[in-house]
Structures are given as C-alpha cells and as structure tokens.
C-alpha cells in the first residue's frame, strides 16, 4: 500500500467493473450460441506460446473491452523465469 493509498483508499468499484466486463464477455458469447471467443483465443494463444516457453494456464489472462467504435483485446501472459530461459 502506498502512502497515497493510505490517505485515499481506492474503492471497490473498479473491481466490480472489471469482474462484470469479464463475466459479461463470456455470457454474451454463450447466449448467442457462438463459440466462446475468449476461451478459443486463450486456448490457441496457449498452444502458440507453449511451443516456445512453458506457461501455466492460470497465468494467462485474456480480456476484451467493448467500445462503441472499436473493441480492444488485452492478453497478459506471465512467463516464469525458468520457462523464459528454456
């Protein structure tokens, strides 16, 4: 916790927003009967990365932010140090 974090505690709203975004991205795709885009991307990215470095499935975060004109796809992969050297 930073000094400013202590003076001005960060609220829980950003957590709520991020949880909702991830949840609704999943629910929207499954409601429309389309394959779950996020799950598919996650799997294919894992396969591609896995060819070169070893990553743990839970260390891969894939998220989509829906905007009016464009949507952005953010992929966050944590590569263990040993894995990176392999």
């Amino acid at each position: 916790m930073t000094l400013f974090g202590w003076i001005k505690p960060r609220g829980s709203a950003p957590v709520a927003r991020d949880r909702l975004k991830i949840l609704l991205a999943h629910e929207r795709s499954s409601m429309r009967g389309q394959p779950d885009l996020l799950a598919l991307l996650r799997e294919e990215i894992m396969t591609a990365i896995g060819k070169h470095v070893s990553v743990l499935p839970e260390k891969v975060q894939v998220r989509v932010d829906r905007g009016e004109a464009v949507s952005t796809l953010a992929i966050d992969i944590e590569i263990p140090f040993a894995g990176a050297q392999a």
Partner: protein
Amino acid sequence: MAQVLVVTSGKGGVGKTTSTAALGAALAQTGQTVVVVDFDVGLRNLDLVMGAERRVVFDLVNVIQGQAKLQQALIRDKRLDTLWLLPASQTRDKDALTANGVARVIAELKEKFDWVICDSPAGIERGATLAMRHADTAVIVTNPEVSSVRDSDRIIGLLDSKTEKAEKGERIDKHLLISRYDAGRAARGEMLSLDDVLEILSIPLIGVVPESEDVLRASNVGSPVTLCSPASGAARAYSDAVRRLKGENIPMTIPSDKKRFMEKLFGRRAA
C-alpha cells in the same frame, strides 16, 4: 400512433414499479393519455404504489379470460384524469397470461391511449417476456451494482431477440435508467459510476435517479414521486427522462435533493 413502453430490469427490487408510476404520471402531466399496466400477476404492486389498491375490481387476467371488459378493469387516477391503471391479478399465477390474450389487450389499449406503459415482473419468465413482447421502446432500470447490471445485460439480449419488433428484424428503442445512484459514493470509487455502467451495457442513458428519501415517502402514501414531491431530485430525474422519451434533447444531469442548511451540516440522520 400509440407508443408501447416496457419498464424492465431482470433483477427484482431495482425500482421498476416506482419508475413505471413516476414516468406514467409525468407523461400524463404533459397532457397525453397514459395507461400503466401491471404484468406482475400474483405479486401485483403497481396499484399500491399508485394509491389505487382499494379500487381494484377487475384485472388484466379477467380481461384476458373474458370475465370482464377492458373498461371495467381500467382505473382512472384520482389526481390526473389522463392517467389510468390496469392492475394485475393477485390470486392467479403468470400462466394465466396467454400470448394471444396479451396481444388483444395491448391492441385495444393502443386505440384508447397515447402511451401504454407495461410494468414487467422481475425475472426472464413468461410474465417478463409477455410484458416486453409488443413494446416499441424499453426502459431498463438498473442499479449501479453488479447483479443488477448483469441481469440488465441479459434483459437487453432478450429485448433484441424475443420481442415482436426484433422478430420482424426491426430494432426496439432501448434506454437505460439508472436508479438509486449516489454521486458521492461513485466519485469515491465505492459505487459503479455512470461511465462504468454505460460502458458495460452500451445503451443510451435516459436518466439518473438519485438515491432519495422522497421515493420511499411517495410509495408510503401511494403517490408517484413525480406527483408527491415534484421538486425532489428523483422526481426531476423522472420528468427529464419523460422529456427525453418524447424526443427533447436536454442535457443530462443528476438532480439532487436540496438539503436544508442544518441537514447539510449534520447529515440527515442527525437532523
């Protein structure tokens, strides 16, 4: 041409009935004829919120099943002669509503009124889908809270697939009404902000109703908040929403209750 509006949300307790009564009364005050229809068969409450609970003789189910004529079931508001109520049945369940019966009643109401406002029950079952079935416009009532936002997203999906308009390939007009909003808590990051909810649901905003003591007082006395406390923040939010529904372009504000000096100083509880 009559407009059919559904007030819906998915989640219960977010303010659908309060909003139906407040929007209906505000619309009727502009001189247009309005009927508010309670679709919550088995758990009717619009009559109570409108202060007409002792005047109910026949209801929507009676009309659908041919036991009463529409004129016999309609209740005229005692304060506004352009506002009418069609109550739901308290003793039946939602299966008493039939698709054909609802279609017939809505068609008949459209001939008599400028606005038909359908107060949807919570959930996504028969009552809710029949309430939205014939709508031209939807007002989705959402609280800035995770479960309400999630359920609203689900309802938006249903509005785009299960309504008559959607099935004909047309688009239903969808408007977001955020209720129980606390601007202070949102600014401190304790509550989802307007921008958060708008970004997630991505439908246009029709109004922001602040958390307000006047809303409870209005339901206590059986009067829509727009009639009971017209100067309150909540009433002004609903009146602005009605002007936007009618096509006026007015800037979006979050009306707040004007607190008296002592209340400001000590907070409402102490005052």
